[in-house]
C-alpha cells in the first residue's frame, strides 16, 4: 500500500509538471483537477484500508535526498489516518474546483502549484526521517504561498503572502532545531534512530516547546496565528479550504508525531502548557471571528478556535498519559483526533460555500450580501448544515467530538497534580464558552449572508453555482450527518492509532446495541446520534402532519409586520457589526480594547451620522509589531555594511582571515 501511495504522489508531481506545460489551454483545468480528484480518492481509500484492515507498519527507503541518509517512508496507523483525512479533503477540494476553477482568470498561476501542494501534504504524513519531513513541510509551505500569491495584484494579498512566508520560515526553523535536538550529537536523522535515542529531560522539554511553536504556528495556535487570517482568505476558495481544513491538520500530525512518538516519555508539566495554549486559542479564535465581517476571514479565525479544541484534547491525553491513566488518555486522544476529521469536513464545506457566494456575487463582505437563500437555495442548505455542524449541534458530527472532550474532562479529577486540578475546570469552562460563542458566530455568518433581504444589487442578482461545486458540498454535508449518526465507526477506526501512542483504546463501539457510543462504560454515559436524529425527525413530521390535518394548513404572503413600521430599505436590517455588537461590548472591551463612538451631526445638518468601531489586536501589538520593529531597526543598522569603501571591505576580509588563523593556532 505504501508503494501505491508513493506512486500517487509521484503522479501528482507529474500532473504539476504537466500543468506548467499546458497551463494556458482550456483543458488544463479539468485535466489537473480531474486527475487530482482520482489520485486523492485513491490515497484516501488506501489510508482507510490500511487503518481498517489492521495491517502491519510498512517501510520503504528510496535512494533520493542526502547520500548517507536516503529517503525513508513509513505507513503506520497515524500516517494512515492522516492520509485518509488529507485524501478526503483534497478529493472534495478537487471536485469543487472542477466547477469553481472555471472562474479562475489566471489558471496557469494556480494549477501547477495545486497538485504540488497536494503531493507535499501527502509526503509530510509519510515521511520517516527528519530530512524528508522538513523538505516536504517546506514544499507544502512554498506551494501554498505561491497559491496565496496567485492574485498578486491586490495589495492585501501581497502583504498576506509576505507575513505567511515569514511565519512559515520561522516555523520550519523551530522544527529544524527540534529535529536537531532529537537526533542528538550522533546525528541519526531517521525516525527509527530518533525513537531509540532518548534525550535528557531538559532537551525533551526544549523539543516539546520547539515542536509546539513550529507545528503550532502552522496550525494556528495563539499567539502564532496572525498569518492565518491573512493568508487563508487570500488564496482561491478551494485552496483556502485545503489550507484551513487540511494543512492545519498536517501541522497537528507533526505535533503528534514529535511529542507523542519521537521524543519519548513526556514530563508531567507538558500537558499544562498545551492545555493552557489550547484553551486560550479556542476562546481568542472565536472572539476574533465574531468581530469580522469578511466571510472568509471569519472562517479562517474560526479555524484557530477549532485547532484550540484539538490541542485541548491532545493536552488532556498528555496529562492522562503522564499520570498513568491510559484509558482516559485514549478517550482524550480519540476526541482530539476525531475533531481533526470533523473539522476538516465542515470547514472545507464552509469555505466551499464562501467560494460559491464569491463567484455568485463577487463579494466576500457579509455586509454587502443578504437574502441569498432565495437565490442560491442549495448552497444555502449545505452551508446551513455546515454551520450547524461547526456549532456542535446534535445530531451532527461536531457535537460528537465535543461530547467526547467533555467526557474526558469529567475523568480528570483523578489527576493528582495541583496545577492540573486547577487548570482543567478552567479549560472546561473555556471550551464551553468557545462552543457557545461559535454558535453565535455562525448564526451571524449564516443569518447576515443568506437570510434577510439583499443589501446590494450584486446580492440580488446571485445565481446558483454549478454542479461540481454543489456535488462537493453535498458530499461533505452528507458526511457530516453520517459521522454524527454513526460515530462508532469512526471511533473504532481511530482505535489502532490511539493504541499505538497511549497503549490503550476506547471500548469497542461496534458491538454496542442500537449503534450508541459508550466512551467509558454503559453505566456512566452514552450517546446515540441515530436515535436522537430519528426522534427529532419523527416528532417533527408527526407534529407537522397532525397540525396540517387537524388544524389549518393555509398560508398567505403579506409584507413583513415589523411592529407596524415596515421599512422597504434593506439597510435597516441588522448587519454583521450590529449583530456582533452585544458580544463585542461584553467581551471585546476587555480582549480587544474596543471603542465605539458615534458622531451625530447637529440638528439641521443633513449629513449622515457616523459610527466608528476601533479594535486593537493585542497579540499583534504586543508580539509582532515590536519584533518587526526590532528587525527593521537591526536591518537599518547593518545596512551600513553596504556603503563601505573598497579598502574597508578588504580589511573585513583580512580581519576574518586572521581571526580564523588565530583560532586554529590557539585551539588545543
Amino acid at each position, binding site marked *: 500500500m505504501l508503494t501505491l501511495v508513493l506512486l500517487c504522489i509521484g503522479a501528482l508531481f507529474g500532473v504539476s509538471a504537466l500543468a506548467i506545460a499546458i497551463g494556458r489551454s482550456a483543458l488544463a483545468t479539468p485535466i489537473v483537477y480531474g486527475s487530482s480528484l482520482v489520485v486523492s480518492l485513491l490515497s484516501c481509500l488506501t489510508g482507510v484500508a490500511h487503518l481498517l484492515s489492521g495491517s502491519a507498519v510498512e517501510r520503504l527507503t528510496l535512494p533520493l535526498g542526502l547520500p548517507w541518509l536516503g529517503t525513508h517512508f513509513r505507513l503506520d496507523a497515524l500516517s494512515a489516518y492522516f492520509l485518509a483525512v488529507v485524501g478526503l479533503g483534497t478529493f472534495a477540494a478537487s471536485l469543487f474546483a472542477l466547477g469553481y476553477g472555471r472562474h479562475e482568470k489566471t489558471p496557469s498561476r494556480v494549477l501547477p502549484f495545486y497538485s504540488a501542494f497536494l503531493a507535499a501534504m501527502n509526503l509530510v504524513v509519510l515521511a520517516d526521517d527528519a530530512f524528508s519531513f522538513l523538505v516536504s513541510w517546506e514544499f507544502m509551505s512554498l506551494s501554498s504561498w505561491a497559491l496565496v500569491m496567485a492574485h498578486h495584484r491586490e495589495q492585501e494579498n501581497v502583504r498576506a503572502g509576505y507575513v505567511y512566508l515569514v511565519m512559515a520560515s520561522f516555523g520550519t526553523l523551530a522544527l529544524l532545531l527540534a529535529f536537531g535536538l532529537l537526533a542528538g550529537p550522533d546525528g541519526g536523522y531517521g525516525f527509527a534512530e530518533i525513537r531509540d535515542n532518548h534525550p535528557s529531560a531538559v532537551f525533551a522539554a526544549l523539543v516539546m516547546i520547539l515542536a509546539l511553536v513550529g507545528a503550532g504556528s502552522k496550525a494556528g495556535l495563539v499567539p502564532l496565528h496572525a498569518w492565518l487570517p491573512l493568508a487563508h482568505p487570500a488564496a482561491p476558495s478551494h485552496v483556502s479550504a485545503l489550507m484551513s481544513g487540511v494543512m492545519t491538520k498536517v501541522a497537528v500530525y507533526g505535533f503528534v508525531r514529535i511529542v507523542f512518538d519521537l521524543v519519548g516519555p513526556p514530563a508531567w508539566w507538558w500537558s499544562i502548557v498545551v492545555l493552557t495554549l489550547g484553551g486560550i486559542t479556542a476562546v481568542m479564535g472565536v472572539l476574533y471571528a465574531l468581530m469580522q465581517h469578511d466571510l472568509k476571514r471569519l472562517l479562517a479565525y474560526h479555524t484557530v478556535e477549532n485547532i484550540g479544541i484539538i490541542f485541548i484534547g491532545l493536552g488532556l491525553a498528555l496529562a492522562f498519559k503522564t499520570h498513568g491513566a491510559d484509558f482516559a488518555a485514549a478517550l482524550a486522544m480519540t476526541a482530539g483526533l476525531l475533531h481533526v476529521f470533523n473539522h476538516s469536513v465542515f470547514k472545507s464545506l464552509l469555505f466551499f460555500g464562501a467560494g460559491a457566494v464569491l463567484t455568485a456575487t463577487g463579494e466576500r463582505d457579509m455586509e454587502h450580501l*443578504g*437574502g441569498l*437563500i432565495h437565490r442560491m*437555495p442549495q448552497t*444555502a442548505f449545505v452551508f*446551513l448544515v455546515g454551520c*450547524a455542524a461547526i*456549532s456542535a*449541534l*446534535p445530531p451532527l458530527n461536531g*457535537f460528537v467530538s465535543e*461530547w467526547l472532550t*467533555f467526557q474526558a474532562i*469529567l475523568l*480528570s*479529577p483523578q489527576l493528582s497534580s495541583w496545577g492540573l486540578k*486547577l487548570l482543567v*475546570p478552567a479549560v*472546561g*469552562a473555556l471550551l*464551553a464558552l468557545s*462552543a*457557545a460563542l461559535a*454558535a*453565535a458566530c*455562525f448564526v451571524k455568518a449564516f*443569518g447576515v449572508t443568506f*437570510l*434577510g*433581504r439583499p443589501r446590494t444589487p450584486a446580492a440580488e442578482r446571485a445565481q446558483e453555482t454549478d454542479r461540481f461545486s454543489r456535488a462537493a458540498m453535498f458530499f461533505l454535508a452528507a458526511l457530516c450527518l453520517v459521522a454524527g449518526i454513526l460515530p462508532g465507526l469512526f471511533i473504532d477506526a481511530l482505535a489502532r492509532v490511539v493504541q499505538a501512542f497511549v497503549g490503550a483504546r476506547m471500548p469497542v463501539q461496534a458491538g454496542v446495541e442500537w449503534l450508541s457510543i459508550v466512551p467509558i462504560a*454503559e*453505566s*456512566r*454515559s*452514552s450517546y*446515540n446520534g441515530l*436515535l*436522537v436524529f430519528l426522534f*427529532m425527525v419523527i*416528532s417533527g413530521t408527526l407534529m407537522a402532519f397532525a397540525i396540517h390535518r*387537524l*388544524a*389549518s394548513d393555509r*398560508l*398567505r*404572503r*403579506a*409584507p*413583513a409586520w*415589523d*411592529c407596524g413600521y415596515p*421599512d422597504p430599505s434593506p439597510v*435597516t*436590517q*441588522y448587519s454583521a457589526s450590529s*449583530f*456582533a455588537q*452585544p*458580544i463585542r461590548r*461584553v467581551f471585546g472591551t476587555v480582549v480587544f480594547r474596543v471603542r465605539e463612538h458615534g458622531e451625530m451631526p447637529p440638528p439641521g445638518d443633513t449629513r449622515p451620522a457616523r459610527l466608528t468601531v476601533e479594535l486593537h489586536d493585542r497579540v499583534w501589538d504586543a508580539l509582532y509589531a515590536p519584533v518587526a520593529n526590532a528587525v527593521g531597526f537591526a536591518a537599518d543598522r547593518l545596512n551600513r555594511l553596504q556603503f563601505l569603501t573598497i579598502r574597508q571591505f578588504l580589511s573585513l576580509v583580512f580581519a576574518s582571515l586572521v581571526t580564523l588563523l588565530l583560532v586554529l593556532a590557539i585551539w588545543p
Partner: protein
Amino acid sequence: MAVIVDLAVQGAQMLLVLLLAPLLTGLVRKTKARFLRRRGPPLLQPYRDLVRLMRKEVVLAESASWLFRVIPYIIFAATWVAASLVPTFRTGLLFSWSADLIAIIALLGSARFFLALAGMDVGTSFGGIGSSREVMIASLAEPAMIMVVFTLALVAGSTQLSTMAGALLYSEVGLRVSLGLALVALVMVAIAENARIPVDNPATHLELTMVHEAMVLEYSGRHLALIDLAAALKLLLYLSLIACIFMPWGIARADASLTALGLGLVSYFGKLAVGGLLLALFETSIAKMRVFRVPEFLGAALMLGLLATLLLFVSRSL
C-alpha cells in the same frame, strides 16, 4: 413484558410533558396576576390560545424563506425530545441512554440556534435585535449550564440523567457545598434560558425590551403556536430538571410498582406546582435588568458553576 412497560412509561412521559406544559405556564401567569391583585386569566387559557392559534391562517412575510416555515417544527422537535428524556415521575427511562444531560443541553442549544436564525430571516431590525441579544445571553448561559452539568456529573459519577437522579436519591451524597452552588447557578441559568424576569419579560409589549419575543415577532398561526408550546416545554424541562436532581424525593425507581408510580406522579405535580409558585413570586418581586447587566448576572452564574466544579476537583467531600 418489562420492555413493554418501559416503552409505555416512556410514551406516557412524552405525552405527559406535552400536556402539562401549557398548564404550568397558565399556573405561573395566574399566580403572577394574583400577586398583583388581579384576577388573571383562567388556568386553562394557554390551551385555548394554542388551539386558537393552530386554527388560524399563517401570514408569512414576503421576504421569509422556506427555513422560516420549517424552523418552528425543528424547535418543537428538539425541545420535545429533550423534555422527554428528563425523568419526571420515574427514573430509568427507556431511551435515557441515547442522550445524556450534555446532549439535552445541546438539543436546547440547537433549538435556540434555529430560533435566532428565524429572527434574522425576515430582514427586519427587530428580529436582529432579538437574535443578537439572544446569542449574547446564550454565550454565557450555556457555559454556566455546562459547568453545572460538570458539577452534577462529578458528584453522581455519570452524565446520564436517570443515573444521576438515582445516585442523588439513593446513595450517600448528603448536603454538599458544590451542589448548593450548582443549584444557585442552575436557577440563574434557568431564568435566563426561559426568558423570565429579570433577564427578559415574557409579557412585554415594548419591542426594545424584548429578546425572545422579538425573534418570533413575524410568526403567526400554527407556527407561533408551536413556538409557544416549545417555550412552555422548555420551562417544564428546566423545572423538572431542578426537581429530579435537587428534590428527588418521591420519584419512582426503575422497577417500581403501580402505587410507586402513582406516588411519583403526585409528587411530580406537587414539585411543579411549588416551582411555578416560586417562579411567579420571584418574577413579581424583582425588576427586569438592563440588557447589559445580564452578562454580569450570567457571568456570576458561570463563576459559581466554575467554583462548584473546582471544589469537586480539589476535594472529594466538598
